[in-house]
């Protein structure tokens, strides 16, 4: 082994330009793989956060039929539920909401919207409605005339702050339509067309009065202390707050499209990795073959003096291993540095809507142990696999042919 180590290390040093190029190729791929992993994880976290923490919450409780039709008559009893959830140690914030279809009209226009009654005090701890207000004020719950509308809806209705609008909500028993006059107290901007054009927020109590049932609710949303807990299907909370009347669901069930899309990011990462590996493998094979062709006579010599095919195979593999290890160390350090820098500053995707989710904060890369353990080791392993063919080729060289020109 000492002999092979000596030969392999000196062979790498004999053509430094080629070795540096090979190391550059492999280490660049390590950097890209580490950055891609950090970015995809950061992007996923960001999208989940944007989808859940902007408005919906990590999880929600509805009547089992509600999400199929958004019919407000599918409601459940609120008594004690919010308090019970607030007492759960894993839960950080809870709020109740009424949701119903409505018509909003101004002197200029009329639009169909979703009227959402919120508790201003609990809502602001769960969602970003308060910070999304671009004009006027967040709801106070003190008056019955306050309403918040999106900026796109305001444009469509041709209204601005303090302008009057009429909200018409069908009563839950379908007997009548409740109407009330509101003054626009706040204009919000989530940068999601569905919300900015199709939602209005009013105090919960007023909303329930318009619906005609102050004891039942359409939605309770809650956030976990750790957002990752929402993906844990084994939590007791799901069973505890589910019954024939209500069902507690994680965002992964409420937004299956987003969940599927995020799952696809893993495949995207795999495809990126495979493409990178193909490029690296071709580069490594090319480099190794150049090195072997350059030394063909040398392999003839060492085989003639007694080096076995197995030892020649080991020599090439060892050269590949040394190159891969050097590259992995350099690539890992640089990859982590890139991730560290991007994690500080982030990449600004804000104001961009993606499958109904607006990315709110800059996407920051995430550094995790896999990036300095498994990922570089995979590149080392795959580099060794790429070396197999050149190593077998060199081991099978016939000494007579290899020496033909020099013997």
């Amino acid at each position, binding site marked *: 082994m000492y002999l092979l180590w000596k030969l392999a290390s000196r062979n790498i040093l004999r053509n430094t330009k080629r070795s540096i190029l090979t190391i550059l190729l492999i280490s660049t791929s390590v950097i890209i793989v580490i950055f891609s992993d950090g970015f995809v994880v950061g992007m996923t976290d960001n999208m989940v956060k944007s989808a859940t923490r902007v408005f919906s919450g990590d999880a929600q409780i509805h009547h089992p039929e509600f999400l199929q039709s958004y019919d407000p008559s599918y409601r459940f009893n609120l008594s004690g539920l919010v308090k019970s959830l607030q007492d759960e140690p894993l839960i950080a914030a809870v709020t109740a909401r009424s949701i119903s279809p409505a018509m909003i009209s101004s002197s200029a226009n009329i639009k169909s919207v979703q009227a959402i009654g919120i508790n201003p005090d609990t809502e602001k701890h769960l969602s970003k409605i308060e910070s999304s207000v671009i004009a006027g004020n967040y709801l106070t719950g003190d008056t019955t005339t306050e309403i918040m509308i999106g900026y796109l809806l305001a444009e469509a209705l041709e209204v601005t702050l303090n302008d009057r609008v009429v909200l018409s909500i069908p009563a839950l028993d379908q007997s009548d339509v409740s109407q009330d006059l509101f003054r626009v107290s706040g204009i919000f901007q989530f940068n999601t067309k569905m919300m900015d054009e199709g939602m209005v927020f009013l105090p919960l109590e007023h909303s329930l009065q318009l619906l005609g049932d102050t004891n039942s609710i359409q939605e309770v949303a809650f956030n976990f202390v750790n957002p990752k807990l929402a993906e844990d299907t084994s939590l007791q909370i799901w069973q505890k707050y589910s019954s024939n009347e209500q069902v507690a669901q994680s965002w992964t069930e409420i937004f299956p499209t987003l969940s599927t899309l995020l799952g696809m990011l893993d495949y995207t990462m795999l495809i990126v990795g495979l493409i990178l590996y193909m490029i690296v493998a071709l580069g490594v094979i090319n480099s190794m073959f150049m090195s072997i062709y350059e030394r063909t006579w040398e392999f003839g010599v060492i085989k003639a*003096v007694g080096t076995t095919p197995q030892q020649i195979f080991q020599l090439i593999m060892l050269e590949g291993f040394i190159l891969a290890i050097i590259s992995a160390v350099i690539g890992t350090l640089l990859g982590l540095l890139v991730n560290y820098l991007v994690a500080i500053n982030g990449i600004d995707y804000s104001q961009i809507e993606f499958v109904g989710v607006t990315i709110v904060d800059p996407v920051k890369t995430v550094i995790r142990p896999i990036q300095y353990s498994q990922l570089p080791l995979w590149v080392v392993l795959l580099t060794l696999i790429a070396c197999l063919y050149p190593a077998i080729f060199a081991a099978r060289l016939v000494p007579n042919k290899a020496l033909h020109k020099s013997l």
Partner: protein
Amino acid sequence: MNNVIQTETLSRYFGESSKEADTLVKALDKVSIEIKQGEFSAIVGPSGSGKSTLLHLIGGLDTPDEGSVLLAGTQISEMSSAELCRYRRDNIGFIFQAYNLIPVLSAAENIEYIMLLQGIDEQERRKRTIEILQQVGLSDKENRRPNQLSGGQQQRVAVARAMVSQPKIILADEPTANLDSQTGIELLTMMKKLNQEQGMTFLFSTHDPKIMERASRIIYLEDGKVVKDETR
């Protein structure tokens, strides 16, 4: 004395003979020779006579189309590639026309190479390397790489490498062809001395009259056949 090398109807063909084309060349045609232990023999003949081919086949670097090679009673024609490598390592020393030292190793490391393959311990390796470097007159150049040595010095290292593991047979393919006359004489004198002192069997392929003068036996090849076998 026992035969160290014995070939029986050894043949090697290149090209092919068919209705469409007849490019068959009989590089070696049923050559049967016997070399005894301790001989200092030379295979002589014009270019293309089959000298190198015969040396390759005896050294197990090539496979015969017909016939067999016995080295110290061992049939090598049927050995696998790995078995042949191990056999060469332990029994045959090669000296090449173009020296063929390993460029990334120093003179001493080149000499040690085969002993490392044989698993000889470091102390013994070092001892033998120092001795052989003294014998070939390169004690002061043991750390030089091949590109830092002259042609003659490189060939001395090649001789030392071939001999240091004390093989039964040393095969030398035109070892003086790239050397000036004086260096060639010095090298041959050294090899002859080692042959006499250590009893190793030398088999040369050569055009060089200096080798022919010193050889104890000359085998003449022509068109792949032995045409004359002269013992002195």
